[in-house]
């Protein structure tokens, strides 16, 4: 039998493009929740409003569960379920994932595969060998939502999946409202033994809450950075070029904007930053970075790089937009920066405009990312021409 | 005493080896400068005597004037000297020369480097002696020679003593008025 943790991993897979931050944060919390549920179903722990207590310290025989059980027994500073979800999500999620994946590989459900990209990014992926277990898990969820009388394990599983907010992705044909009411009904039914009901609903609540809190934190940073980036780009477009002092002799502005050496320095720095930003984006897109525990940080650093680019661009141009081909280069580059920044504003700001439906936000985000990538295409060509023309003339 | 002998011996051998090094390439910088100076001063003397003296003093056909173009006259010998020096710079970078003074009518002809000042002071204080040295200018090493420039005729003295921009008005014929500086870049 698979543990909740393993089932959850199967459902989430290592598929591409889980870009929605809520899901991503939920995933770490859900892993923590899954392992707690596994322990609850093994009758090793119990929870109430005040505390999460170990009821039976005897090992379960599953090393992944036993490690966590030992940790819960040993630590006295963490008492209640919410705290344990936070602790496990931040400290153990990556290891839990590793262990669960190992177990799935051992059972020949998944295959471990090592990849390299650009000689820099190394990654491990887990293609499916045996589709059956995943289908089994999915059909169990389907059964729960249809009118079948569910098994307690199935109720627990669907709570986890629901907490991860991946139901619409797994079963796109389901009506969201109907599913919600059915889940609400299941939750109220006393289908699971008394010992477990409290634990499961408590854990599910906590997963959702913790995920929301993390997502909110991320979105707040994302929104702040994206707003800074957007403002910087818009300023670059609107501000008049900064003049140089009308005094003979070297001055910082004159050196920055009219001295060949400085221009080369800022120009190549800008190029390096832009390439770094692009590498992060590619790595994220190709899932070459450990996205479970860190992709949001990488995404934020992509944005920080973007802001750094606007700053270095200012060093390079002093708000001058250039002429002819230089103007074309500037326009394209600013389009890349602005579309990127606005994507951040849309995603990070989504919770603030509730009247706009999520699908609209997705559509806006898709269009912006498309513009972001499209504007990127002519950049290398324009850059080559820009750099060549400086050295040729 | 021994130490002094050692130092003197060392200096002597360094000097000899430098001279030898210069001689190995042909003529020493010092000698080349001396020869150039001979050409320059002979040229100036001939221009003064055959052109200026004859046309403006003896035959009174043309005036010799600082503003020779406006006055439709002859350039002064010192001007002629400088025109040629500038023309030489158009043709070669292998050497350059200038006519300078510690008390020039035009400030641009005052000493511009430490060596120039030192050399001009040396030739003024030690009549009959030349001054040789090395200096670094614009990141390159130069051999520089300074030769005394005398007030040869009354006209020189007259003009310098009466010019409104002249800082010295007590010159007399035969006195050192300034110097010719000849420079070679040392590879």
């Amino acid at each position, binding site marked *: 039998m698979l543990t909740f943790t393993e089932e959850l991993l199967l459902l989430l897979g290592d598929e591409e493009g889980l870009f929605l931050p809520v899901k991503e944060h939920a995933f770490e919390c859900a892993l923590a929740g899954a392992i707690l549920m596994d322990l609850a179903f093994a009758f090793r722990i119990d929870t109430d409003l005040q505390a999460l207590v170990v009821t039976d310290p005897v090992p379960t025989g599953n090393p992944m569960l036993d490690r966590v059980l030992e940790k819960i027994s040993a630590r006295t500073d963490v008492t209640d379920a919410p705290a344990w979800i936070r602790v496990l999500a931040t400290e153990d999620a990556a290891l839990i994932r590793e262990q669960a994946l190992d177990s799935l590989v051992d059972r020949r459900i998944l295959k471990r595969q090592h990849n390299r990209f650009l000689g820099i990014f190394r990654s491990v992926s887990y293609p499916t060998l045996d589709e059956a277990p995943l289908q089994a898990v999915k059909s169990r969820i389907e059964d729960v939502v249809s009118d079948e009388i569910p098994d307690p394990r199935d109720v627990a599983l669907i709570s986890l999946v629901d907490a991860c907010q991946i139901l619409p992705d797994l079963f796109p044909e389901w009506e969201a409202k109907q599913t919600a009411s059915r889940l609400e009904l299941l939750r109220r039914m006393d289908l699971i033994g008394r010992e477990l009901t409290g634990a499961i609903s408590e854990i599910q609540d906590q997963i959702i809450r913790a995920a929301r809190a993390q997502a909110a934190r991320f979105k707040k940073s994302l929104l702040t950075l994206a707003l800074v980036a957007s403002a910087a780009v818009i300023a670059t477009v609107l501000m008049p*070029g900064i*003049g*140089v*002092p*009308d*005094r*003979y*002799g070297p001055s910082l502005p004159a050196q920055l904007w*009219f001295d*060949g050496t400085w221009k080369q320095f800022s120009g190549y720095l800008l190029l390096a930053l832009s390439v770094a930003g692009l590498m992060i984006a590619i790595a994220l897109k190709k899932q070459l970075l450990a996205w479970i525990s860190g992709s949001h940080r990488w995404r934020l650093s992509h944005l920080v790089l973007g802001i750094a680019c606007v700053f270095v661009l200012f060093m390079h141009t002093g708000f*001058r937009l*250039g*002429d*002819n*081909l*230089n103007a074309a280069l500037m326009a394209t580059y600013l389009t890349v920066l602005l579309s990127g920044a606005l994507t951040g504003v849309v995603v990070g700001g989504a919770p603030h405009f509730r009247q706009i439906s999520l699908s609209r936000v997705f559509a806006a985000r898709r269009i912006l990312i498309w513009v972001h*990538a*499209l504007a990127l*295409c*002519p950049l*290398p*060509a*324009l850059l*080559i*021409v820009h750099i*060549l*023309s400086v*050295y*040729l*003339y | 005493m021994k130490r002094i002998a050692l130092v003197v011996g060392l200096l002597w051998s360094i000097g000899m080896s430098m001279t030898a090094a210069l001689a190995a390439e042909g003529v020493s910088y010092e000698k080349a400068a001396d020869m150039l100076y001979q050409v320059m001063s002979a040229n100036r003397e001939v221009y003064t005597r055959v052109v200026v003296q004859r046309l403006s003093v003896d035959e009174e056909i043309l005036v010799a004037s*600082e*503003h020779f173009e*406006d006055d439709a006259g002859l350039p002064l010998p010192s001007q002629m000297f400088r025109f040629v*020096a*500038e*023309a030489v*710079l*158009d043709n070669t970078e292998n050497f*350059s020369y*200038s006519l300078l003074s510690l008390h020039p009518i035009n*400030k*641009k002809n*005052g000493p*511009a*480097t430490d060596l*120039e000042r030192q050399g001009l002071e040396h030739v003024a204080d030690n009549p009959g002696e030349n001054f040789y040295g090395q200096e670094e*200018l*614009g990141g*390159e090493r*130069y051999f520089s020679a300074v030769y005394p420039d005398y007030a040869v005729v009354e006209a020189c003295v007259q003009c310098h003593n009466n010019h*409104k*921009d002249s800082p010295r008005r007590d010159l007399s014929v035969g006195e050192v008025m300034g110097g010719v*500086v000849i*420079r070679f*870049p040392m590879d």
Partner: protein
Amino acid sequence: MQAVLGLTLLGAAYVVVTMTVAGDRRMLLSGETTHAHHQLEMACETCHGRSVFADAKAAQKALNKNCRKCHEDELKAAKDSHSRKRFRNPRMAEYWDKLDARQCTPCHIEHRPEITRESAVTVAMDFCVACHSQGEQDIRTTRASHAGLGFETCATAGCHNFHDNRALFEDFLLGHAGQPEPTRPAVHGLTARYRARPVSTDKALQPGDAVAPPDALAEPGALQHWAGSGHARAGVNCTACHAADAAKDAPSSQALAHWIDAPPMRVCMECHKPQAKTFVLGRHGMRQHPGIAKPRDLPGWMGRWLGDPGLPVRMTVGEARLPMRADAHPAMAVDCASCHTEHALDTAHAALEACASCHDDAHTRSYFDSPHHVLWQREQAGEAPPGSSVSCASCHMPKLEHRKKVRTTHNQNDNLRPNEKMIRSVCLDCHSLGFSLEALADPKLIRNNFTGPPGVRVHSIDWAIARSRNPEAPED
């Protein structure tokens, strides 16, 4: 996405080819080119040479060499006060870091409209501070009168120029000090001499002598205008211009076989060499300057596709940066006939109406209400002696003497910037130096074309006098 990527790669390839092989490269211009050079924008090599990937120093050197190619003579004529020659001497090494006068580009960089000031200067106008604020060169201590002056005023107050001080140096000021304004009508000596020159009528042709096809002879006014022109007076028949390619002594019937209705400019230039030579130095004719780079060579079929845009031979009204009249057609190009009406070759027209038929700035418009114009009307009416009037050409294309011959310069930019260049060749003929300096330093007076007294005081003559009286003491 891939299509976009492919397209831009194609675009980049095209641009790289235009950069390295041939094609129109104006899209590479990093900023508006100055008034002086915008007509040559498509001929990059005129200035840039072919120093591909040379190090910065060598590239600068090559660039400056090309500056000198066109501007050296003019600087020589200006008795350049900061000549390259003087600063190339290694003894001036100390100054190379302050303001490198061995080269043009430290002060005049192209394609930087934002920092380009009067006379294409691209450093702040207080540049004199670089050298004249220290040691023996500190002008504030060596000239007491200059103690309180700002360095931004040296070159902007009508007292000094960096290159051309022919009418500003101290002895010149002293030589012209105390002159009263001459009583009018004063006469521009060279112009008077030119107008009074004996004109031989030995070879003069009559209307009946004209050799031309019948339809050309029938063109209204043509014959009559030619008959009254200097050409007819000097024995220049129709075929001399309209069939210039025919042998000089060919009989008229053979010459007519080579007849062309509109002879190109080179026909004029063949005889009027001195005029042509100066014409290509000014902005009207600079596109024919021999220093302009030829389009890069490409084999035939490639040339047709990718060749450099040929440099238009003539400047057009549409390309002008100065204000032009709305009724002057943008495609109208400047050649000899634009000003010298064909056949009549009216120099009076060329000296005034021709200019005002295109130029439409305040200075031009104000001319017609100016005292100079009154003088012009009087001379035209025969009420004043020859050479006493002032047209556009009197100042901008003055008569100059070279080897005892008086000629009209056709480089109308020669004495324009800095405007003190005009003092010797033009102003002093009729005005005192003091008046000239002040008039030229007053932008308002230039706009209204010298109608009224100068509103600007230039102290240079007073200070020169004070210093000459008492060189040691501080002047005032």
